């Protein structure tokens, strides 16, 4: 009996920890329904909530000062873990994590070196490589396009992987690239996204990969209106316009967020960098009933092969952020 009792005590100790477990998420400016990055996190934690019945606190940031305020408030109110979405929250997490050394923090898309922070980053270049291949294979004009959000290294990383994948398939392919803007509003400007897409279509592009958050919605809409193809980003956006969405370069932020909560719940949280690529299923290309018709077996085969080669190291996809250039 005594042993059992001890076990119960030990168990209850973990349960007590779990009682401290109050997930808190701070979304960034795009908002949790951006159909993309933030929304991916949202669906991950919603799934967690459904499965475990544990609720969470969330906040959507609307100005720069609020990031730090929101994260601190979450930590203060006992939030654990506190998850910050997006690189812009890096400095805030860095600061608040120092003030609350006992709380677990996590950030997506940015590296923060603190003993209680898990930095989740994705190898977007690997996934982009694959959708670049698909784009070229689907293109009839041998011209593919890329529309980024803000002109920042992270987006360049997408672009560079995409370019490399495209050239890998057809070295003569022409790639037209545009960035929506240079301010955070570039993530939520569908009108401009649509105009950029129309501009690319007029120049002969017939497949566009948009890595531009909410701006992408305008790109996909324009593709649909023009009868061209588009590639979604971050979340699986295939469902938006079946027949138009060739595929989506999925960043499994939902899985990452889910795993994070799970790890804190079970006490297996680890600080440090979690780098998620093809091998970890952190990035992928989406194939579902919405785009089945667009992906031929040959395409699927070629991409699956490339994926295996990347995982095995046979194909090296250049990471733009490693040297801020796109040389491969």
């Amino acid at each position, binding site marked *: 009996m005594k042993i059992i009792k001890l076990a119960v005590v030990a168990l209850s100790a973990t349960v007590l920890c779990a009682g401290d477990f109050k997930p808190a998420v701070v979304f960034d400016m795009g908002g949790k329904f951006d159909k993309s990055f933030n929304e991916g996190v949202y669906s991950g934690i919603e799934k967690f909530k459904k499965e475990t019945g544990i609720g969470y606190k969330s906040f959507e940031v609307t100005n720069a000062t609020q990031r730090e305020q929101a994260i601190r408030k979450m930590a203060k109110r006992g939030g654990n873990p506190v998850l910050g979405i997006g690189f812009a929250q890096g400095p805030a997490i860095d600061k608040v994590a120092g003030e609350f050394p006992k709380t677990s923090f996590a950030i997506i898309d940015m590296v923060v070196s603190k003993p209680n922070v898990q930095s989740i980053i994705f190898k977007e270049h690997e996934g982009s490589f694959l959708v670049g291949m698909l784009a070229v294979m689907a293109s009839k004009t041998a011209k593919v396009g890329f529309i980024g959000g803000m002109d920042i290294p992270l987006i360049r990383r997408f672009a560079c992987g995409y370019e490399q994948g495209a050239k890998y398939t057809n070295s003569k392919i022409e790639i037209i690239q545009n960035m929506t803007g240079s301010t955070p509003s570039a993530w939520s400007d569908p009108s*401009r996204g649509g105009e950029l897409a129309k501009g690319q279509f007029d120049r002969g592009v017939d497949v566009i990969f948009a890595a531009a958050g909410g701006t992408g919605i305008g790109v996909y809409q324009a593709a649909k209106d023009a009868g061209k193809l588009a590639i979604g980003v971050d979340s699986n956006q295939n469902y938006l316009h079946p027949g138009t969405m060739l595929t989506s370069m999925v960043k499994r932020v939902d899985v990452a967020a889910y795993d994070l909560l799970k790890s804190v719940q079970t006490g297996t949280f680890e600080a440090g960098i979690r780098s998620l690529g093809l091998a970890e299923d952190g990035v992928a290309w989406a194939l579902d009933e919405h785009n089945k018709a667009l992906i031929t077996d040959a395409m699927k085969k070629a991409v699956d092969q490339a994926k295996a080669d990347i995982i095995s190291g046979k194909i090296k996809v250049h990471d733009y952020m490693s040297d801020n250039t796109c040389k491969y």
Partner: protein
Amino acid sequence: MEEILTITLSTLAATIRVSTPLILAAMAGIFSERSGVIDISLEGKLLAGAFIAASTAAVTGSPWLALAAAIAATMSLSMLHGFATITHKGNQVVSGVAINIIVSGLTVVLGIAWFHRAGQTPALQNDARFMPIEMPGVELLSNIPILGDVYAKLISGHNILVYMAFLSVFVTYWILFKTRFGLRLRAVGENPSAVDTAGISVAFLRYRAVLIGGILTGIGGTYISIAQNASFIRDMSAGQGYIALAAMIFGKWKPVPAMFACFLFGFLDAISIRLQGVFLPLIGEVPVQLIQATPYILTVVLLAGFAGKAIAPKAIGVPYVKER
């Protein structure tokens, strides 16, 4: 050659698309300001129109109902502006600023309450939107070089609101200069006492002018959310109301010149999208921000009288009080 034509045409077509809400808002501004009421709230009305249109379209699926609802909403804002500035003789700029701020907050608040999508409205299916119209004869003309392309890409292939915007310019011109209402409207913006002593109600005249502005901005807002785009996104008017105001001043409060000013500003926007990252000979890379700031800079230059004097209606900004 082929490519230059394509790029030119696509830029011009983009110009038309981008100019449409500007034109509608600028005409709204002309009605209001010609009657002596400054209308800074063009921006807010565009935004409100966009929000209500997208919401209505999302719920009912009908673009026409959406248009009607948007117009109703913007007309209520016009009534509010009129109530503050015409009935209560409040400061017109303050009232306009207030409306802009209220709308930019309320659209998000209501959007979240209604749709739970962080202020966005649900994406619309095509039948809930105003879609491009193929004009008759595109096929027929397509064999004619240049002209065929021009017809197909520039003249045809826009949605009905675009054509309404163009129509609004000529209707505005006609009303303003060829009708009794227009004569009185222009008079009340210059000398309200003259209108009052001629036995015409200054307040009623100004209310009508402001309400027409409401109708036009309602159409403009509808265009932004359910024709140009397929949903409402917070602050999606993005300063177009102010650009329209600038265009109206640039056009010296006259409909046709104001339309050309809208084209100019729309063209600058279209070109800034296409010029991005392009190196021009001699100049090097043109900062996109410079192109984006050009409408504002041009307006300031014009207002400074360096590009012909812009003379505002004389009684503008002054609430009408019978002198004592």
